[in-house]
């Protein structure tokens, strides 16, 4: 029984972290149309920073691994630093890659950024211990008098608190005039620019907000699993989250939660229970094959996802991939002068 409880609590933590990822990507792509195929590097920088600032100096007992930002900071500080690191990296990357260009170019360039980062961190051992990665990250709430199982559930609850807080914050943001400006930019970039929205600044803003959430999710994950290495952040990991938000439905948060529940959690975990066939590792390969097929199938059969975004009335009847009218998004922002 406790094995099940342990397993479920682990799933709960992964679910929470993936929901944060889904919210971040959905804000960036679903709301603002900014294609972030480098998502995983912002999660990773959060994880690395949270690990390095909690591990203490890389001398003495920890001398087997090398890392920068070595510090021994008390519990919530590494998490805050992880969040800020995600945002800061997003700001830097966004400054040179968020130029006005076709969305597929944007996606390809982000993918290249993701692969360069992976290559550099893997090759340069002095940054975050190269391909071996960091390990032995201390558990943040270990001072609580808890059994290992209870600790699991307390940590799952802790992740859950962040999920709810970020969910409420992002929902509020996306309903605000800022959120409607994002949608306007997504659907009719030229027109939104003509109405006086600063497209470049909006993109950078949404990129940094997404980066902050990504950094936080990385910090939460590394403090749970205790280790982080380049094996954990290939481009395919970003693709899984993209698949989740496409399957669930872009542009709304119920869709994100549903998609994350279906794709990374149920879909990738159910395969753990299937009987292993062939040589060891075959199932892992096939898992990725099926994720790729799932995405392609989803785009073919339900391009708007299981829970499609509710379009404003004026945009009813528009085609799945078509742009919608601008006015409904800008109502309140410009409504006063019109009334």
């Amino acid at each position, binding site marked *: 029984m406790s094995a099940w409880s342990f397993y479920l609590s682990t799933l709960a933590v992964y679910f929470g972290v993936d929901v944060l990822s889904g919210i971040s990507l959905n804000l960036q792509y679903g709301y603002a149309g900014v294609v972030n195929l480098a998502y995983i590097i912002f999660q990773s920088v959060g994880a690395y920073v949270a690990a390095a600032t909690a591990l203490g100096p890389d001398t003495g007992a920890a001398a087997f691994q090398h890392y920068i930002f070595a510090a021994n900071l008390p519990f919530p500080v590494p998490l805050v630093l992880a969040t800020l690191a995600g945002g800061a990296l997003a700001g830097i990357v966004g400054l040179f890659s968020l130029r006005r*260009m*076709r969305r597929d*170019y944007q996606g390809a*360039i982000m993918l290249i950024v993701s692969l*360069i980062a992976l290559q550099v961190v893997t090759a340069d051992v002095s940054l975050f211990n190269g391909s071996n990665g960091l390990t032995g990250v201390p558990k943040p709430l270990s001072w609580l008098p808890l059994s290992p199982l209870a600790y699991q559930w307390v940590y799952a609850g802790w992740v859950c608190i962040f999920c709810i807080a970020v969910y409420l914050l992002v929902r509020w943001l996306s309903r605000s005039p800022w959120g409607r400006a994002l949608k306007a930019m997504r659907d009719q970039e030229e027109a939104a620019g003509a109405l006086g929205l600063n497209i470049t600044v909006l993109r950078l803003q949404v990129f940094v907000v997404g980066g902050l959430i990504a950094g936080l999710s990385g910090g939460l994950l590394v403090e749970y699993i205790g280790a982080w290495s380049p094996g954990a952040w290939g481009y395919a990991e970003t693709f899984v989250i993209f*698949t989740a938000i496409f399957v669930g439905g872009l542009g709304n948060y119920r869709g994100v939660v549903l998609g994350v529940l279906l794709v990374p959690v149920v879909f990738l975990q159910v395969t753990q229970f299937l009987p292993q066939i062939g040589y060891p590792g075959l199932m892992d390969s096939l898992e990725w094959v099926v994720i*790729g097929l799932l*995405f*392609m199938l989803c785009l073919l059969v339900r391009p708007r996802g299981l829970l499609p975004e509710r379009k404003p009335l004026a945009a009813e009847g528009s085609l799945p991939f078509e742009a919608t009218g601008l006015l409904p998004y800008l109502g309140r922002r410009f409504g006063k002068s019109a009334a």
Partner: protein
Amino acid sequence: MLGTLVSAIAFGIVLASVIAIAAMGFTIQFGLTNVLNLSYGGIMTIGGFAAYLVTSHGLSAWYGLGVGAVAGAIVTLLVGRGIFTMYARRGARVFEMMMVTLGLGLVIDYGLQALSRNNVYEFTVLQSAPFRLGPIILTPIQVIIIGIGLALFAGLEALLRLTRIGKALRAMAADPALARACGIRTRQIIVLTWLLSGALCGLAGVVYIINSQSVGYTTGELFLPLVIAAAILGGAGSPAGAVLASLLMGVVTQVVAAYGGSLYSTAAGFGVLVIVLLSRPSAVLTKQANEELTLA
């Protein structure tokens, strides 16, 4: 000191030849169909594995080149006519299409991982003793690779500039609707594009594994970013631009490797892309109107 530089440049030209073969195929495909095909790396790996299978059954590597090209052409045609067209009919735009190709790339890469049992296979064909040319030490196969690259570039340019088919290809790249109105059989031209770019892709895969002497499922995935970067730098649809951009990236990568260690060599190649993005944004900025896919 100068010797190091000269030999680094020579190695750069070898690498550039490999990048250029792939980038020429990529840029033709992208220029004509507007599909930014991220499964291109996976198809390169298919070409490489096809050549590996042929040579491991005792045939010469020259057959391997042919088989790799044919495998690349067939797979690309099937994927292009079968899968991509299906999405285009349902109204997918350039971004959705790119995500589809990324998903397809995942299917191909990890399908090959499953088939190859996650092994890296040695591919040591056509190896012979290196020779000296002043400060430069090259192996005959490296010279052959440069030769193949040059021959393909010359052949492609001749096809595009001197034949009627080439004229039709260029007309399609410039304005598909106008080309159709002028009586060009666009459907056939698209089929030709898939075959031509697929053959170059498969060939590039074989040449790459001859140069690196091993083949594994990540072969194309690791190489694809360099190819895309070269194609973007050179301008979509321009083989000559792709070749020049490949030369730049190949030489920069190898010179940095010679002086600054191999750690940052690949990253430096991408550094070129970033610098160009910042200084010459017109290389990638395209008009909104040009977001239509041309698949049929």
